[in-house]
């Protein structure tokens, strides 16, 4: 995807700093990427998409919190780096819609799969604040193995 297109979707991304780190791939979305699965598109209710057995079908922000809890994450207070933990940030709207999830890298920067486009590294969470993604509203962490 041209950088100009990314910067149209995310008006603050250039100033925050980012880099594209993969090719375009429709095979997985941000949820799968946060779950470290690059083979499937994760989404509830869709016949074209994967959703883990045993996790309630719920496409709200809280529904995705439950999904990531089933994968070993727990809610935490902030996005600050914590030794021994991987963090994720769930984006959405204050109405409770889930729109995106980013995963923290050991450097403290963040990595995201942008819809059906590329993976990117972005220096801040706020880089993706936008109409399409809302803002980071829930933070979760998982102990590194």
């Amino acid at each position: 995807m041209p950088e100009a297109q990314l910067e149209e979707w995310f008006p603050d991304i250039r100033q925050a700093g980012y880099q594209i780190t993969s090719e375009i791939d429709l095979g997985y979305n941000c949820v799968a990427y946060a779950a470290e699965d690059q083979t499937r598109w994760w989404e509830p209710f869709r016949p074209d998409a994967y959703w883990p057995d045993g996790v309630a079908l719920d496409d709200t922000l809280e529904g995705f919190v439950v999904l990531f809890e089933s994968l070993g994450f727990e809610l935490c207070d902030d996005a600050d780096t914590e030794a021994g933990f991987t963090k994720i940030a769930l984006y959405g709207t204050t109405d409770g819609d889930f729109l995106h999830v980013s995963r923290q890298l050991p450097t403290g920067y963040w990595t995201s799969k942008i819809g059906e486009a590329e993976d990117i590294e972005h220096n801040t969470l706020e880089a993706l604040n936008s109409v399409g993604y809302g803002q980071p509203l829930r933070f979760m962490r998982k102990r590194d193995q």
Partner: protein
Amino acid sequence: MYTDCSHDTASRWLRAKYFRQKPSYSNRRVREIAALERMSAYVERKAIIRTEDRVANLFAELAAQWKRETAHLSSIAAKVSHPAYRRIVDLGPTAIPLIVRKLEAEPGYWFAALRTLTGENPARPEDAGNFRAIRDAWLNWARGRRLL
């Protein structure tokens, strides 16, 4: 469905003019009528081609808009509720060959539109989430119907 109003009107007028002059047609008149019929068929074919071109152009514009405005979204539900996608579905079965050719040329989440327009789903339930497998299933479906 495939009509061109101005040509239809002209064709009806010409037919009415000639057919009013019944009952006995000379050989010359018969040849003129045959020529008119050929002309009418030609005009109709051209009108169909023009209509198909218009639909193809509209599809291309809507598909480009859809991709530009939804490729960053992580939700198929959000993608397929975009107005451009819904307008493509509203084109009806005419859109099916356009969609499968687009799907073959450039990957995209066209499966919901194809399910709606065809009433079928050739993808296996166990392939849920596997874009490549679902795309292959639809392309094979299209080849089986000589749409590709």
